[in-house]
């Protein structure tokens, strides 16, 4: 009964016009009760016979010009493109196109913003250099094409990678008076504030002779690096990194303020003092960050100076001589700046300041600037500390790239000098300040890498081929840390095609790099990344792979091994057949097998291997028949504990995405079934609905991809197994029922609608499958739909015994009709009673109730019956009494319009009568 009632819910149009709907005539005694009208009422319920096919309102398609989901579609396409680029994380895009989830998974507006370049960060670059750069837009374009990273990226990398927990010392005469240790509440034992008078150390020796005194005086006059008159050098020790940074930023602020209040010399002095902070290389692991912070200040000054000079040279409001005078004056001022800077006594500040002002040469003579550039890069040779020298080189190269991006001579020289300095040995034994147990070699490799990388990338972006060749030769001649760093920065910065050409010699170089700075596997990985971007010549590929894999196989740490192997697997998959891929995977299995205790930790890496192999392979199909590939899948299957961590899901996704066509191999299907079963088993009370939905979709797409062709028995077997495995996911079960129905219909098609004895029993098995499965579903609507579907299928296939659930069969049964009539009559009676009992403040509820009841009767009842008509008129009077006149008018209009073709003249009369 309840099923029948559902089938007749208005708004659920029957898809099968030959079904007759319930036609119940209800007649029964009505017990009179006090009603509002006071009359005794006899209630009957008689149901009208419906002609759904005729009543159905066909939807007329309208042509459209724009796709309502256009935006979504675009995004999906975009994301599909992304998927191919990001090979590491494949999705199951092609199978399930859910526009909502694809929007969600794709770049949402927020992450779009994240990905876009921040317009503000661009401004951080000193405008002086920027302007100079803009002068040569083409070069800039070339840079973005190459592997050149920007200074901002470099800066951010350095700041986040070189930190210290130790204490730092800050020396400056520009520290605020309030900046004493007391005001900062520094613990007493950490308070170190020293002051010294403005006389530099050398002049403090007692008993100075007259000439020495004069010399001291002159030095004070001549050089700017001494303290401002009466200034006191404060040295504040025991600072944390944050405090140190804060102080530097404070000085930057002060520099800008000084400049704006026309105290240019003070601004220059502040910059000089900041650079002096760089002449202390300890702690080494913080030096790079210190460098970057100081460079910020230098950049600020440089841009202020440049802007002022530029403005001077362009301004034309000179009373006499016009713009030329302005230009000459600007040149004179520029020279004055260089004179000032040239007289700075100490090497480091002089070097940095002149480098910072290099762009100003463009106002005098570009050639002079280029000469100054090469002179500056040679002057760095005078810096004894290799670390300080390296970072100075980085700065000069950076400024050089700004003023003369095509010059490479000075970079090559710098690199040579850099290597030479490293050969002389690093900091003396025991002097280096170790950072939390980091050993000296790796610290050295870490701190020396950024400058070299920067120089190399400057070189790589503009130098001709033969220069790069010469660097490669230097790699071969190099030794120790220098060679190691050079090779790794070469791999990181040089153009891919260059590296691809030289891949084989580079591999031999890597094999020879014994220094424990950058590890061999890191170098191999970088090389792999390059050859994946640009392929080496055909005849080199096999020797290259052999040489590389020999090295990879010796990588001791399994994690490192797997990451490197993953990168080279991509290369192998791209350029070789599945046989080679299989061989490599065999090696991987051997490695992982020996390290079984830590299996779990390597799952993500191994998953990456699987998806790499699948994504890049030229013939993924053959891969699935490879022994070691299946072996790899076996590893994941071995225990289901991993199901929760997404690895299994990743494997399944990868397999589904990259498997060409349907799954026909029973072994592979079995593998997948097990994996999906593990996924299913991982669902528990804590699983979110969304996750549940995603897993269901994944499993469904798997089920739909399984196809055993004409072997219907096996297909059904698979569905049976699947039902057993995924019993907790309703949507999967729904999908299974649909699949089985399809299978039955496929059988029917094959047999040309004439079942043999064997197929008949098979189809019956299918129908039985459906009827066993459907009752376990939670949602009644779904259940009903599936019953209808499977019933239809069963009917078509002549499985009358299985059509049992169909409404049409027992919907017309007189017994059922009678039962329904009785129930409805009782119900109607009760409702009327209820309406009558509504008095007082509840009276207002009569209206809606009566109105609904009226519609119910008008829709479902057979109004040709006089008793029924009587009830209707009664209720109509209730409606008139309690409802809003507007509602009544609307109802009346509707009835008048529809009663014409429904032949309800009596009803129309009733309504009109009521109005009268």
């Amino acid at each position, binding site marked *: 009964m309840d099923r029948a009632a559902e089938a007749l819910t208005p708004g659920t149009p029957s898809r099968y016009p030959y079904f007759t709907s319930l036609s119940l005539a209800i007649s029964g005694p009505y017990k009179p009760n006090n009603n509002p009208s006071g009359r005794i009422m006899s209630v009957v319920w008689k149901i009208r016979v419906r002609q759904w096919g005729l009543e159905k309102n066909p939807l007329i398609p309208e042509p459209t010009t724009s796709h309502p989901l256009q935006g979504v579609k675009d995004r999906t396409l975009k994301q599909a493109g992304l998927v191919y680029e990001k090979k590491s994380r494949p999705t199951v895009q092609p199978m399930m196109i859910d526009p909502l989830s694809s929007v969600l998974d794709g770049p949402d507006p927020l992450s779009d913003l994240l990905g876009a370049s921040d317009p503000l960060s661009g401004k951080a670059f000193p405008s002086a250099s920027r302007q100079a750069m803009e002068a040569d837009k083409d070069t800039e374009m070339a840079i973005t094409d190459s592997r050149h990273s920007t200074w901002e990226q470099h800066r951010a990398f350095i700041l986040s990678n070189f930190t210290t927990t130790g204490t730092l010392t800050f020396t400056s005469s520009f520290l605020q008076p309030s900046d004493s240790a007391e005001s900062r509440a520094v613990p007493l034992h950490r308070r170190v504030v020293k002051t010294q008078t403005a006389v530099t150390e050398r002049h403090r020796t007692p008993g100075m002779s007259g000439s020495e005194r004069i010399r001291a005086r002159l030095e004070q006059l001549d050089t700017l690096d001494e303290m401002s008159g009466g200034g006191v050098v404060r040295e504040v020790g025991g600072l944390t990194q944050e405090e140190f940074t804060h102080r530097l930023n404070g000085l930057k602020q002060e520099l800008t303020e000084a400049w704006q209040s026309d105290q240019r010399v003070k601004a220059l002095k502040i910059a000089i003092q900041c650079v002096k902070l760089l002449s202390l290389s300890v702690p080494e692991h913080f030096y790079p960050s210190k460098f970057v912070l100081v460079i910020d200040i230098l950049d600020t000054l440089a841009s202020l100076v440049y802007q002022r000079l530029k403005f001077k040279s362009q301004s034309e409001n000179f009373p006499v001589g016009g713009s030329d005078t302005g230009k000459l004056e600007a040149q004179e001022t520029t020279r004055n700046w260089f004179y000032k800077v040239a007289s700075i006594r100490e090497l480091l500040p002089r070097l940095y300041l002149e480098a910072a002002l290099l762009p100003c040469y463009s106002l005098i003579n570009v050639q002079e600037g280029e000469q100054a550039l090469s002179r500056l890069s040679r002057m760095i040779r005078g810096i004894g*500390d290799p670390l300080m020298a390296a970072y100075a080189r980085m700065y000069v190269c950076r400024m050089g790239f700004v003023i003369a991006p095509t010059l490479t001579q000075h970079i090559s020289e710098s690199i040579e000098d850099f290597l030479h300095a490293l050969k002389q040995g690093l900091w003396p034994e025991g002097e280096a300040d170790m950072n939390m147990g980091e050993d000296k070699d790796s610290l050295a490799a870490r701190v020396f890498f950024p400058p070299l990388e920067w120089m190399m990338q400057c070189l790589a972006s503009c130098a001709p081929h033969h220069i790069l060749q010469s660097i490669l030769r230097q790699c071969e001649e190099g030794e120790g840390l220098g060679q190691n760093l050079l090779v790794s920065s070469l791999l990181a910065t040089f153009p891919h095609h260059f590296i691809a050409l030289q891949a084989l010699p580079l591999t031999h170089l890597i094999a020879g790099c014994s220094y424990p700075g950058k590890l061999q596997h890191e170098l191999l990985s970088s090389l792999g990344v390059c050859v994946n971007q640009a392929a080496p010549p055909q005849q080199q590929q096999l020797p290259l792979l052999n040489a590389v894999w020999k090295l990879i196989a010796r990588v001791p740490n399994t994690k490192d091994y797997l990451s490197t192997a993953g990168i080279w697997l991509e290369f192998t998959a791209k350029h070789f057949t599945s046989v080679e891929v299989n061989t490599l995977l065999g090696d991987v299995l051997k490695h992982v097998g020996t390290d079984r205790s830590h299996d779990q930790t390597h799952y993500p890496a191994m998953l990456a291997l699987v998806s790499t192999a699948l994504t890049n392979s030229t013939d993924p199909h053959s891969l699935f028949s490879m022994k070691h590939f299946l072996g790899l899948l076996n590893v994941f299957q071995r225990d289901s504990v991993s199901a929760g961590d997404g690895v299994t899901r990743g494997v399944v996704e990868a397999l589904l995405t990259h498997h060409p066509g349907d799954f026909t191999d029973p072994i592979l299907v079995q593998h997948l079934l097990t994996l999906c079963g593990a996924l299913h088993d991982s669902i528990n009370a804590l699983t979110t609905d969304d996750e549940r939905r995603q897993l269901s979709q994944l499993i469904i797409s798997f089920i739909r991809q399984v196809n055993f062709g004409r072997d219907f028995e096996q297909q059904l077997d698979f569905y049976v197994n699947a039902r057993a495995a995924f019993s907790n996911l309703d949507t999967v079960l729904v999908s299974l029922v649909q699949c089985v129905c399809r299978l039955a219909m496929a059988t029917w098609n094959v047999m040309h609608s004439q079942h043999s004895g064997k197929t008949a029993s098979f189809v019956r098995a299918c129908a039985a499958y459906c009827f066993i499965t459907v009752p376990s579903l939670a949602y009644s609507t779904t259940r009903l739909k599936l019953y209808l579907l499977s019933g239809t299928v069963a009917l078509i296939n002549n499985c009358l015994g299985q059509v049992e659930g169909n409404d049409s069969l027992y919907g017309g049964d007189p017994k059922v009709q009678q039962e329904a009539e009785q129930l409805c009559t009782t119900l109607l009676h009760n409702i009327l009673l209820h309406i009558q009992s509504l008095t007082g403040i509840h009276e207002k509820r009569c209206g809606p109730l009566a109105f609904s009841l009226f519609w119910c009767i008008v829709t479902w009842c057979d109004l040709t019956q006089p008793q029924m008509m009587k009830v209707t008129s009664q209720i109509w009077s209730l409606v008139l009494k309690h409802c809003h006149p507007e509602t009544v008018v609307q109802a009346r209009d509707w009835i008048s319009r529809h009663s014409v073709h429904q032949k309800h003249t009596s009803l129309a009369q009733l309504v009109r009568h009521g109005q009268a």
Partner: protein
Amino acid sequence: MDGIASVQLSPRSAGLIESLVNSSKPISLISQSVEVTKSGRIPSGQTEIPFELPLNPRSSSKILYETYHGVYIMVQYSLRCDIKRSLLAKDVSKSQEFIVEYKPGSGDSEEEKVVNFEIRPETLQNVRDRARIPQFLVRGHLDTSIFPLSKPLTGELTVCECERGISSIELQLVRVETCGSTEGYTREASEIQNIQIGEGDVCRGIAIPIYMVFPRLFTCATTVAPSFKIEFELNIVIIFDNDHLVVETFPIKLIRS
């Protein structure tokens, strides 16, 4: 109107050369006067009076030296304008220094020669205790010994070997003023610029550039006059990590070119 050029010995030179100071009066190099306008009334408002004075030495034996303000020696040229007025009013006078510089290229063009040098413990003079000097060898060269003032001083040096650590390598520009007459002379050296070219224990075997821009205020062309001399020297100072230092001195000639 007159123009006066004078050479004075600085009153600051004390002690030894006091007697000399007293004896040597400022030498007048040039002294001319010319009447730029005849006596009469100057109309109220701004009046520009053009004038011209040839820069001719006072006598043929005198040379016009370049303007120079040193500690002991000063070459100064000035213009003074006097307005003589009637007896009742005071004369008005205003003096203004002007600078005399030789035309570039007017100096005698001597051949530029590279100055090679080598500093070893053995080459050092004035060593008290040779045993305390570490073994070292520094080679290098100055591009020339005659430098135009407008161009930087250039060259390079290489620390070939050194058994001690080096803490700094510096270039010291020293000006030597010699004042003298027939009775004797006095020589005073003062550092006018010190530039560090090597900081810390520099790499061995690599050429470090020697580069110094001459400070404009404290340099002039090397000048040799009968009663005074202005000369320049370059000191290369190598300071070891125990604060001992080694100095090598090179006389250099500065020219206006």
